[in-house]
């Protein structure tokens, strides 16, 4: 793996942290607006349009179907623990963050692996 390409992968790894998460600690968000922001504000550049991740060789950038508490989510945006670019309040308001969070929470689960023949081992 050439790290010059993998830098972003490392950058967002901590998004995948966090176990015990509940969406109910989040302010009410608008998933439709969140989708627009997610696509327009660059989240999708590294995390893909439906949070599937990308950019590196190992896991780390996928944020779909990851149990992330809102507090950890916004904290990571404001003060990234790694190389992820910071999103300050002036750029992304708390409501914007809540909308994006709602979008991620609302993403449907992916199709069952067993239903995709070409991914069979």
């Amino acid at each position: 793996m050439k790290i010059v390409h993998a830098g972003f992968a490392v950058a967002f790894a901590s998004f995948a942290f966090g176990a015990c998460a509940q969406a109910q600690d989040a302010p009410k968000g608008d998933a439709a607006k969140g989708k627009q922001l997610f696509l327009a504000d660059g989240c999708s550049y590294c995390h893909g349009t439906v949070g599937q991740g990308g950019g590196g060789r190992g896991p780390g950038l996928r944020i779909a179907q990851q149990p992330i508490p809102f507090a950890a989510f916004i904290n990571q945006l404001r003060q990234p623990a790694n190389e992820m670019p910071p999103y300050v309040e002036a750029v992304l308001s708390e409501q914007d963050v809540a909308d994006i969070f709602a979008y991620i929470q609302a993403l449907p689960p992916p199709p069952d692996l067993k239903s995709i023949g070409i991914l069979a081992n």
Partner: protein
Amino acid sequence: MPKKDVPNEKRRRFLKGATFAGAAALAVPRGAAAQAPARNPVPLPNRVAETAPPAALEPLTLGKSGSDFMVDVIKSLGFEYMAANPASSFRGLHESLINYGGNKSPEFLTCSHEEISVAMGHGYFKIEGKPLCVFAHGAVGLQHATMALYNAWCDRVPVYMVIGNILDATMRRPGVEWNHTVQDAAAIVRDYTKWDDYPASLQHYAESSVRAYKIMMTPPHGSVVIVADATMQEDPIPENAKLRIPKLPQVALPQGDSAAVAETARLLVNAESPVIIADRYARTPTASKHLVALAEVLQCAIVDTSGRLNMPSRHPLNQSSRARGHVAQADLILGLEMSDFWNSLNSFKDGIHRTSRHIAKVNARTISIGCGDLYTKSNYQDFQRYADIDLAIAADAEATMPELIEAVKKLVNGEQKAAYEARGKKLAANHHADFERSRFDATFGWDDSPITTARLCAELWAQIRNEDWSLASPTSQVSYWPQRLWTMDKPYQFIGDGGGMGIGYAASASVGAALANRSHGRLTVALQPDGDLLMTIGVLWTAAHHKIPILSVMHNNRGYHQELMHVQRMADRHMRGIDRAHIGTTLRDPPIDYAKIAQGMGIVGIGPITDPKDLAPALKQGIALVKAGEPVLVDVVTQGR
């Protein structure tokens, strides 16, 4: 050469003697001929010269010139192909190659840009293990070739350049020939080629040409440049010339010092958590087998950086997805042909304050085996940051591997074997878990549009997995999904990246690789980034013209995505929002129709594919055509990474 074109010997000797005087007689009034001989006379307005009948002794033809001998020399080196954009400074060589040389061994490959010629040579070598010859103008042609030569340099791949030039100022035609002449022609690429020369005679040309070949093929491989002076190309071969082509030796590869290899074996055998990192290690099909053999004796972790296909992707000891974790835990780290050992031992933070951290254990022993220590230059910084290495063995790692394996085998005892087996089982479980995780991760966004890179690669794999296939493009821009999902176990199935990361490599190198694969009957596929193709798009025509079968599947994310993310980083750092980051980084308005471009270049163009359900039929159609000998491009609109 056909007989009808060969003047008889008597006339040829006569012409050789008459060339200069005759040319001068045509160009200037008779009285001035002795003072101003000119080989390529200036067409000055001169009514006498224009209206008088041609001088009786004016030589208009000659049988054999220096360029014929140069072609003999080039043929002696065994090139199959010579790639070039035509240029007047090697017109003599060009004509000799296609007529005197019969346009065979080497065959002329017509390229629309010298960057294409060289990058084709780059890809060709990594499949075939043999260099491509490239002709170019000494000035503007070599200027075009520079970036591709730099990529090849960084990737330790040799390309054999022959460039035209006219050193003697009195021999140059006015105007463009002066613009296209350079005093020290190879200077522009000397920082990133291994050797060059400007021979002053045909015998000198022969000796330097063979010397250049020997130098380029001695590891570390590197490109060479031979300047073929145009006057020497076009002048008759001197009558008394006793020309001979020197012997090309078999090159024995540099192996590691025996004591150092023995010490490496001892450290490997006694290490609790050894890790072997392989970068540009594999040159031949045996390299991977040797690495597997060493790994299986030791049951240790192998990290393949994807500089080449060093370790089969599905081998249980392949731990490339966990590279950092293994390095952090290791008590011994062995690097094979590392282009950047420092980067494997450290992490680097791209923040306002750029910082780095050593991730390997402080007391971990580090050993390198590689040719990088045998030849380094100063100006361009591709040698990367200095790494703390305990033992640096300056040698070809592949050539050193058999001795290392034997030394390790001799040292391993029964107790160690049991410990190794336990270690290997854990690693195999890791590998299995990583593969399962990759399959699961690939399902996310499965039906999304733009199409995910995981879906793109999974669909392509489904179509080629039962073929004898070769992936000829880098995989970093598609998130290494081929390494994560495909079974890669033959060296030609993956050939690494462009070395210097200069954009424009993938399109041309993959066609060069496909050219090499053609004679082996392999199916060549490439995951072709859009920005890369735009740099050297003329290579599509070369593929069409020379009937080089390749399935080029576009990773068309409609932008320079890496740069988009860099601008995003800067905008976020400056708290300005990223709504303008697309400026200068995207190719969306208007969207580019690559299928139409391909069609315009004479190859089959399919797409754009935006619905993932359309992918399989398009790929199937494309592969059928490629197997019939056609180059095909399938345009797929994809996500960024």
